[in-house]
């Protein structure tokens, strides 16, 4: 169990290193904003909860998208290659189901542009 945690962390560390090198400054800023504001729900960790009576599940946003797409599209936002700016902007500014609205004092317009640049970068 401990070995597999270490291995996956090493791999995650390697992939994020590679990622940082591939990103332009706006995309890097976008990644930072994403990590702060989005990753706590849309990240890749798998966590159990005794409090909520749940076995190991992806984080709430990833879990919700997994149920929505049922494997047809990646549940992890950072793995999508087809996202469109207008849709990202709409969801962030209007909320969607349990995801609340984000204000400009939290995620400014330029922060949002940067998140979009990061998530929609050509790959």
């Amino acid at each position, binding site marked *: 169990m401990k070995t597999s945690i270490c291995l996956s962390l090493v791999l995650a560390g390697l992939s994020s290193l590679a990622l940082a090198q591939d990103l332009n400054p706006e995309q890097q800023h976008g990644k930072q904003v994403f990590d702060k504001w989005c990753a706590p729900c849309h990240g890749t960790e798998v966590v159990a909860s005794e409090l909520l009576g749940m076995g190991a599940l992806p984080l709430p946003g990833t879990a919700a998208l997994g149920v*929505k*797409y049922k494997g*047809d*599209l990646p549940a992890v936002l950072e793995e999508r*290659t*087809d996202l*469109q*700016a*207008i*849709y990202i*902007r*709409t969801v962030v*500014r*209007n909320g*969607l*189901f349990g995801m609340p609205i984000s204000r400009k004092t939290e995620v400014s317009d330029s922060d949002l542009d940067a998140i979009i640049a990061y998530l929609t970068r050509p790959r």
Partner: protein
Amino acid sequence: MQRRTTLKLGLGASLLSSLPLSGLAGQKTSGAEQLQVLVNRQYTEAGHLADAMLSRNIAVQDISGDLGSLWYRSIKPQMESKPAVLFGMTDTIDLFCLEELARDFGMQTRFRLDHIIHSNGRVEHVPADGLNLADIRQLLPASPGFGAKADELSALALQYHHQPVLHYKKSGPFQRPDNTTLVTWLIS
């Protein structure tokens, strides 16, 4: 053409007392579902489709202004009371948004036909992978004005209402500088 930056989810619209859902009698599909036709009237060909359907007394909703508001105030409530089949002609970014919104209700694209309008006026009609539309060239001219062939298009699309969903490549194509890509689709 001004691109919208967000799909406005209608603060202003929501503050008004709820508008009557006018003229959505629409066309019934072969099942019990309500057909809802959505077009982006910013595009000439989509406008032709809209006009052709309106002339047949089929209600059409224009999504070029406030797609999000229309979705939440009109389309979604209709679907909650009665299952709907969505059909229309928009650009591919509109389709992406509609697919995401419709997917929240378990609906997916079952028919997709891209219309690549080149700057010299030539039109290519490209069915999505998985659609065998050998007769498409007979149905639709490879030139401006094809949008008026609404009867043919909607009849064709409706055949796919109960077909398996399309697993076409969703990563595009999106707007390219040398052409305009419109798309006719059916989501159910």
